[in-house]
């Protein structure tokens, strides 16, 4: 290994050293470089001083040019090293520390060479006193180098080698046997010095490591402190938020129209809100600490309530919407919809249960009345209509004798309007059923093209009445859809009859099917007058007809499209319309395809 590389290699901490504790090698190198460079000026000053003293001491002992030539070289090297120091001071980049170490190692070698040359040059040339002077100078620079290069022992080795080598050689070849003996000792001094430098080097290294560990610890401590401070602040913000939301919550409970109880796991009331007092007629003082199920539920319901309560405590899951008849303090029975929400602590234990009860007595009564009303309306309106339409049909069919033409004309008007009234009632009842979720839909998977064909057959006569012809354009696709057959036919009938009503006599209403990927679309394309823009937004709402005079002229209740829209939604589909480029309107509906 070349010595310069070794000098920089040695700076690297041993790979086997505890890598978790050892600071980053690059930082360590930077530290050592900084340490070595910081001592450089002292070394430079010492070098200059020694050179000056040496020149002064030796100026007469030999040829002047040799002394001054040596001094010139020595000063040049020293100046170059000073330049190195200057360069290092200006570079801020610690990432290049390794390169600066390499340069310093070269500097050390050159520095050593100055004294080496001094040693080799003067042995042959000078007298005994001068030799003693050089001997002492060399011993001095060798020992002085230890402290200078202690942060890197290879650097010291590089520095010492050019001094020790020629010096030993010079001594060994001297006539004086005492000096020959010193020649044996010099390499030993060198080895001992390198050894001392190595020990110092280790000390420096551990010092640097401690320093890094301390710095890291300090940084971590500071970060920890900052985090702690931040957490404290967050905690205090959170606390004020919790307090605020607690006050808000208390207010909600206080003002809620819903009865709210906080119960312990045994069902005893811990807290009761004013709504609960109003709904059940008991004061908070009467309910506090009591098992409220015993107060509120009739004896025959208590077992069921107890079972649900246990299940809720066991699963720790909220129990929603339990409908229970409850007896008020005054004996009146009401129906409440209850939800139970267990409050579970971090250990999974139920601390308390929030029971909320909504009085739905009036709502149930209203629903019952509405249903009864609808049912009665349906019956009471249809029964007389049966007689009216039936009687008129019998007259118009001529079963009871042929009436004269004018009478027949009038009875035909009466029958037609009777039918219209009937349609209106049916549509209204349908809509009411859909909106109250009571319309039964029997969904079955079936091919849509067959339903379209069936609808075309069923409505052909209706089309004939308006002298409009229904035709299929393109292919009818055998796409399978999950629908209620009757409801799809109802939608198709609606769209076809609308198209027939609004198309001019002799027109063709086209029916098409289109594959839309996950959906299949059925389109009914008419040749009508189109839909006024002002009407687009409410075409699918109740009693929607663009031109009321058309209602009288063509019939229809204005509920058809509203019903279609809701029916399609029940089957997962949707309805829409668009204007045809060459006049008329396309009404379409889409249904999801089944595999």
């Amino acid at each position, binding site marked *: 290994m070349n010595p310069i590389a070794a000098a920089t290699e040695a700076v690297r901490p041993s790979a086997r050293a505890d890598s978790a504790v050892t600071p980053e090698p690059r930082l360590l190198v930077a530290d050592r470089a900084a340490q070595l460079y910081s001592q450089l000026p002292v070394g430079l000053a010492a070098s200059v001083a020694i050179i000056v003293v040496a020149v002064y001491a030796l100026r007469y002992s030999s040829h002047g040019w040799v002394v001054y030539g040596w001094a010139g070289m020595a000063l040049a090297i020293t100046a170059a090293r000073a330049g190195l120091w200057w360069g290092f001071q200006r570079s801020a980049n610690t990432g290049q520390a390794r390169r600066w170490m390499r340069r310093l190692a070269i500097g050390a070698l050159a520095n050593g060479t100055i004294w080496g040359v001094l040693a080799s040059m003067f042995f042959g040339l000078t007298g005994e006193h001068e030799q003693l002077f050089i001997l002492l100078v060399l011993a001095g620079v060798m020992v002085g180098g230890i402290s200078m290069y202690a942060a890197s022992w290879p650097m010291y080795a590089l520095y010492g080698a050019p001094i020790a080598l020629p010096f030993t050689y010079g001594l060994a070849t001297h006539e004086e046997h005492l000096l020959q003996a010193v020649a044996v000792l010099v390499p030993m001094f060198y080895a001992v010095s390198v050894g001392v430098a190595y020990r110092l080097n280790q000390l420096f290294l551990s010092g640097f490591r401690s320093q890094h560990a301390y710095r890291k610890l300090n940084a971590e401590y500071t970060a920890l402190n900052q985090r702690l401070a931040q957490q404290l602040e967050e905690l205090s913000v959170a606390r004020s938020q919790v307090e605020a939301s607690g006050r808000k919550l208390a207010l909600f409970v206080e003002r809620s129209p819903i009865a709210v109880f906080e119960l312990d796991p045994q069902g005893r009331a811990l807290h009761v809100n004013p709504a609960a007092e109003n709904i059940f007629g008991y004061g908070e003082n009467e309910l506090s600490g009591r098992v409220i199920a015993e107060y509120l539920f009739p004896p025959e319901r208590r077992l069921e309530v107890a079972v649900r309560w246990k299940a809720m405590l066991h699963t720790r899951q909220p129990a929603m919407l339990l409908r229970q008849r409850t007896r008020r303090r005054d004996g009146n029975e009401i129906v409440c919809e209850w939800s139970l929400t267990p409050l579970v602590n971090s250990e999974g234990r139920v601390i308390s249960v929030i029971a909320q009860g909504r009085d739905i007595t009036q709502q149930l009564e209203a629903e019952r009345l509405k249903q009864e009303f609808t049912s009665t309306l349906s019956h009471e309106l249809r029964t007389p209509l049966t007689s009216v339409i039936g009687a008129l049909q*019998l007259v118009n069919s001529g079963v009871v004798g042929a009436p004269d033409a004018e009478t027949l004309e009038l009875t035909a008007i009466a029958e037609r309007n009777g039918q219209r009234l*009937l349609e209106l009632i049916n549509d209204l009842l349908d809509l009411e059923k859909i909106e109250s979720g009571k319309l039964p839909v029997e969904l079955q998977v079936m091919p849509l093209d067959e339903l379209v064909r069936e609808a075309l057959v069923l409505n052909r006569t209706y089309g004939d009445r308006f002298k409009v012809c229904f035709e299929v354009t393109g292919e009818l696709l055998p796409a399978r859809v999950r629908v209620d057959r009757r409801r799809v036919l109802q939608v198709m009938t609606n769209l076809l009859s609308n198209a027939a009503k609004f198309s001019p006599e002799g027109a063709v209403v086209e029916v098409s099917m289109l594959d839309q990927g996950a959906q299949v679309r059925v389109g009914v394309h008419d040749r009508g007058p189109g839909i006024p823009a002002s009407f687009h937004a409410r075409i699918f709402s109740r009693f929607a007809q663009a031109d009321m005079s058309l209602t009288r002229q063509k019939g229809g209740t204005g509920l058809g499209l509203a019903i279609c829209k809701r029916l399609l939604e029940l089957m997962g589909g949707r309805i829409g319309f668009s204007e045809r480029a060459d006049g008329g309107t396309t009404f379409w509906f889409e249904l999801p395809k089944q595999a």
Partner: protein
Amino acid sequence: MPALPLSRICYVEDDEDIQRIVRLSLERIGKMSVDVIADPAEAIERMIAFKPDLVILDWMMPRVDGPTLCRKMRERPETRDLPVVFITAKASPRELDELRALGAAGTISKPFSPKDLPDQLRTIWNALPAQRA
């Protein structure tokens, strides 16, 4: 399909106007013999006397309604096997279930067309198994 065509019908209905319309429809258009019974209390005795092929009951009547009358018919051996058709103004799923439970042969929904009524009844009649006639 029963061996004989449908010709004798008992119709229990409290509304006089509808009675008259149904009678006209079945007699004039359907060429059937009809016994219209206004009072459900005497219905079963009248049925036993008239020996109809098929009985039509109005679903909703004061005092005794159609389903109750149907259940009473099932208790008497003479009327137990008579096919029953209900006329009803509302067909909620619950009522349809009840109709099935009563073993009704069919239903006609109100309002019905008197022109088509005889044909509707014949369709129901022809769908009945042969041994019931």
